């Protein structure tokens, strides 16, 4: 309930310092811990100006405020950031390899101030291959039409502290694209014999990674790649994240 002075002064009576101080002390207590919900105006009144404005971090493209993080980063903008995926960083195409490597620039590090619900979005568009190299430890490259086993896998990467305390390539969430079934010729006329979309080497993928985060926590979200081809161009990519503190 709202404040009620314990002592009401009456004309013609002696007012003591204790009575005056009692009223003041009751007021102090009320202001410090006695304001009840019934004292507030019973219609929504907190305006946006009363809430701390979110901070925008231009390089990562993220906005951080009281509700959490929103934003993202992508391959476009003023600087095109084409990325490559290559088997030379993940096992030289060996079918036995399970190595993943982070795709440069496709990660963001965030500081969660407290527990949050996180939804990490990612997408990419790639042209895979064509790789017809002949090392026998690889998936077959011949006869023609059997190179589909040379794939590029993209997975969401989560940094330390997110999954059992270690950085983690979430292999259970692999999304793959096969090696192009046909490619670039060095004979006249030089150029692409057939487009990637026609021969299976084009991949346009998107995925999400959702998780409850226990904060506070500083961690990373990004993309990792396992490639079984010598050259794969990630021509476009984007990552975005929404995190809610409550």
């Amino acid at each position: 309930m709202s404040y009620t002075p314990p002592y009401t002064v009456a004309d013609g009576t002696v007012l003591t310092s204790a009575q005056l101080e009692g009223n003041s002390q009751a007021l102090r207590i009320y202001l410090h811990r006695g304001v009840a919900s019934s004292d507030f105006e019973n219609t929504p009144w907190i305006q946006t100006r009363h809430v701390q404005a979110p901070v925008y971090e231009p390089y990562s493209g993220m906005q951080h405020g009281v509700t959490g993080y929103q934003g993202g980063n992508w391959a476009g903008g003023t600087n095109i950031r084409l990325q490559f995926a290559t088997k030379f960083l993940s096992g030289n195409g060996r079918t036995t390899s399970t190595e993943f490597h982070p795709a440069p620039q496709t990660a963001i590090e965030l500081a969660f101030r407290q527990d949050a619900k996180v939804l990490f979005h990612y997408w990419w568009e790639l042209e895979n291959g064509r790789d017809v190299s002949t090392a026998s430890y690889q998936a077959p490259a011949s006869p023609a039409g059997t190179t589909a086993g040379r794939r590029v896998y993209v997975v969401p990467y989560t940094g330390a502290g997110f999954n059992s305390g270690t950085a983690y390539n979430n292999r259970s969430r692999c999304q793959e694209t096969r090696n192009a079934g046909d490619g670039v010729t060095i004979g006249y006329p030089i150029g692409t014999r057939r487009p990637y979309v026609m021969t299976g080497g084009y991949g346009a993928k998107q995925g999400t990674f959702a998780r409850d985060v226990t904060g506070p926590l500083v961690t990373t979200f990004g993309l990792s790649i396992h490639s079984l081809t010598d050259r794969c161009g990630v021509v476009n990519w984007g990552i975005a994240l929404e995190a809610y503190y409550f």
Partner: protein
Amino acid sequence: MSRLTEPAILDGDDIDAASINDRYTQFSQPGALNAFNTRDGAFDLPHFKRGNDAWLAPDLYETTMGWNLWKHSSYHTRIGQTTGAAPYTVLDSVGATDVLDFGPLGVVVAPTDILRVYWDLSVRARWEGTRPWTGGALTFTVLHSGGGGSSAISNGYGCWAFWLEWDITDNTLSNFVEVPGQGDFNTVVTGSRGGNALTNCGSTSITPAIIEGADIVEDGRVNGSVLVYETGWSSVDGAWHYIPTGGTTTTVYGVRVVYSGPFGAHNGGGVNYLVRNDAVADDARLDQQAGQISALHMRLG
């Protein structure tokens, strides 16, 4: 508005009972504390109760699904389906159906809420036999090949379809039905073949069943050989959201991904459809591996 308007005591003022009482009772303004008592930027993250208070994003669920062998050393293989078939579910390593389970109480989606679902799944479409998609209909076209001949070739529409079902009956998760805006592709559209109008494919994603072209194509003619490429392993993904209509509240106990195929494109009466290709279904295969499904329940207002 809660404001203290009593003026300060100045030299020469009378100090009487009413004056003193007023200086205390002016704090008694029930139901009046509001924006005028709150400074700009007063509320920041530390002021909000710690933990998930189920306000903006009350519920988040996620799970992997399928058989998690990303090198594809083993996988589930499904045979093409014909009209009337119940769709396939995503199977885990022991052949059990994977479901995103919302728990015993389910997720209560109010008219002011939204349920957002995202998923992806690694699959491989393939065929038995030699170019069986040139049988039946829907998945091929016939082009001139010179000299009065012709060549049947994929029209690019052959696909497998994936969509969402939910259980809004109870937490036994034994009453899955298609989500709103989504049909089961078993309504007969042409001949005896079932399908959905594209307007009834609200949660549908597709993956190509055929990658085929032709060499030396010129002026609509195929002068060279038909080129067939394996579709190979690939992933298919989907996103769907639900906002209750008509002021209703829906309790959702679980969602799952289902799939069927092969399908082709059809236009009838000015309506575009995705229709089953029953004639060649027995030769179609879909290998299923692993993926994930997640759902976020949020407030809209």
